[in-house]
């Protein structure tokens, strides 16, 4: 079991953050292809809003964006959608379930570093960034904001977060109602659930224009340190299962892990979710840049 000191992550240094932000700036200020018109923002005053299309009203939409003429014509609530400007709202969603703390908490530490770097880079280019930390529920939240001082808030929150060693489940869907008005959602999770959290991703996708999914992978989670007959206990559910540990079991687990990633990747490709899996032994900078490049190319 990892202790809190082990799980508590160290954030990237300022030079690391600045170097990454400089490299990712062009990838982050590009115009987004589609955005919900409800709360596009401008970094500078006087920048207008371009109408894009209409869609049905959904609970949570701004009432002032309802197109009354279209509503009267179609006899149902219709809201206007707008093309977004170069800056918009981002929400970084962080998985703090117990599975992120397993095997010494390496995944959690890596995830926190990536989240901090992504927040810093987004704030550097003028985006508004919020943070959601979820487990079985939303564990903590940092409202969207901008500027260097906001990074300090996010960094403080990240530094104080630590997943429970056991018993904290993964409920990404709990974040859905907190994502109102977010243009882009950047999710970092191991997606270790029976359906790889696809249903929750689908729900989130309904609430944002762009959804990013980063899946950190720790090779240790498919490698048992003991051999022979033993009971495996799910850190989140506590359910136990007898198994015969060994090289064969490790290989089967690795294959299952790959299969889960494959299923998730297929889902994301079909749904328009920008997905990347990340071997946490690799530098987070490379993974993030590759992911942002992938996002830009998919637009």
């Amino acid at each position, binding site marked *: 079991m990892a202790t809190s000191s082990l799980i508590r992550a160290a954030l990237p240094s300022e030079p690391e953050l600045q170097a990454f932000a400089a490299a990712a700036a062009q990838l982050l200020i590009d115009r987004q292809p589609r955005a919900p018109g409800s709360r596009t923002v401008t970094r500078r005053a006087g920048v207008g809003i371009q109408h894009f299309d209409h869609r049905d009203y959904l609970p949570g939409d701004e009432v002032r964006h309802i197109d009354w003429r279209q509503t009267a014509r179609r006899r149902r609530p219709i809201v206007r959608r707008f093309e977004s400007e170069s800056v918009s709202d981002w929400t970084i969603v962080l998985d703090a379930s117990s599975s992120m703390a397993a*095997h010494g908490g390496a995944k959690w530490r890596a995830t926190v570093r990536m989240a901090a770097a992504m927040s810093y880079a987004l704030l550097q280019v003028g985006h508004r960034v919020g943070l959601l930390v979820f487990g079985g529920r939303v564990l903590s939240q940092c409202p969207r904001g901008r500027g260097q001082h906001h990074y300090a808030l996010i960094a403080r929150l990240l530094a104080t977060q630590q997943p429970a060693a056991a018993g904290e489940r993964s409920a990404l869907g709990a974040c859905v109602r907190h994502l109102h008005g977010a243009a882009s959602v950047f999710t970092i999770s191991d997606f270790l659930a029976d359906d790889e959290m696809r249903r929750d991703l689908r729900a989130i996708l309904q609430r944002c224009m762009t959804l990013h999914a980063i899946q950190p992978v720790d090779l240790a989670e498919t490698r048992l*340190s*003991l051999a022979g*007959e033993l*009971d*495996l206990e799910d850190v*989140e559910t506590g359910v136990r299962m*007898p198994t015969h540990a060994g090289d064969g079991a490790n290989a*089967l687990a690795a294959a*299952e892990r790959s299969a889960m990633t494959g299923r998730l990747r297929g889902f994301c490709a079909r749904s328009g979710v920008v997905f990347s899996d990340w071997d946490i032994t690799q530098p987070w900078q490379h993974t993030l840049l590759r992911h942002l490049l992938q996002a830009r190319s998919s637009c």
Partner: protein
Amino acid sequence: MLSWGTPWWLLGLALLPVIHWLHRGGEHRRVMRVSHLGLWQSSTANPPAAGRHQPPDPAWRRRALLALLLFIALAEPQWPQRHPQVTLWVDDSLSMLTLEPARAAGAVTGSTGSSSSSEAPQATRLLEGLAQARAQLEQFAHGAVAVRALSDPWRNLGPLTDGVVASLAAGAGKREGASPPAALLHPDKLNWLVTDGADARLAAWPEGRRPDRLIQVANITRNVGLERLSARRNPSDAGKFDLLLKLVNGGNAVETRELIFATDAGEVGRSSHRLDPGTSVFASVSIPAALTVRAVLQTNDALAQDDSIALDLAALRKRRVATDGRCPKSLVAAVDAHPALALAPQDTSDVEAVLDCGSNAAAQRAATVRVIAQRTPVQVSGPLTWAATVPESRRIALDSVRLHLAAQLQIQPNDAVLLAAGSEPVIIARKGASNLMQTSLDFGTMAATAGPEIPLLVNLMFEQLLEKSLLDEIAITDRGPAASRVVPLAGVELPAGTPQTSAAPILSDGMRPLLLAALLVLLWEIVALARQSYRSAKHARAGSA
């Protein structure tokens, strides 16, 4: 049939299912936490989802066995012995020598001869009881038999053989018996008692125990015996002894007996006595001084051994004291007047004590009182102090004004100062091969003043020297109050309703073997836990490597 001493402990067996339940679900298996159980579905060994219960930890059997053994042991299981050991307690008091009509005596006397049924129609109670015991042992007890006499209970005489019977017959009546010691009344052995029941003390066993079987032989109910004979010097005539004899009617009928006293010189007294049942009378007579005296009852009865009693009077004879001719006349006169001392010439060899007043001729022959006179007598100075070893009642009230010392005694290590005047010793008991007592008192000067000091000092010094009380000496022979009783007393018999435990089974205690087995299981458990701990540590090291 199996029985239980504390059966409520068996309720603890209800814990066995609890032990099984506590070992359910494989808590014994090593547990390892993983991020997501779904990753390992393919390598499931026993999927719980299939509804199959994991087998309990096999160690539950070991722990349940341990609990089982402990609870059964605490319940004190007892089961009957097939061949119990028998301890045959034999009352070998004097009354057991009472002659009884012989029935089975011939079966046991064999080598004893005198009680053989073919030669005499009677046998003693002891032989009769042992014969009955042997017959019953042959019928019942197939285990070992240990014979013990109540007069010497710690000595195991072994099985009931002819030699043991002869030994018991020869030693009967010599010593008083007592009830068996509790330490020898093993609960896993049968305890039989052969007695006539005349002495209730022998049947009053410790801790409320009772004989498992009582073999009682007591058909004769008439006996008069001589219980005690004592003698002392006649205070008015030093040549005579006063005898006191106690006669006891130990039967249940009025008896009349003729009592005869006899010494080496022949009969010295005769009297007739009538005794009611259970009563006693005292007969007293003065006889001329003799070495022994014997009292005999006529006519004899079934217990002949208590119809006569002898007493050695040697203890009452006067001690011969060789007296030095230089001793003051007053000192010699005091020795001569002492009822327990007799003067002897200075050169006599067979004396028990010597009074030495400066002539060393007889100094080393026997215990000696040495009167030392080396200087002109001077009156004692300082208070007179008696040693603590001299009893308060025997200390003499001396007037220091009338005491004069004719020498100064030197104290040596280990000497005992009996009397001191201030810091100066007056009477010293010297330690050595033969007793020696020295005094610096000037008895000649003391004789000038009339007083009892000299005879009292002479008596004190010779008593200390000979380590005996010379006045009021008593010679006595006592057989004890129950020696002549031949009628069984109430309470000796087994009470009504008490089962003759010869029919009741003797129970073996199964607690110890069960506790031993539990101990072995406990050791097994400890070894198993140690092995498990070692293997876990080994796997952990392998995993971390």
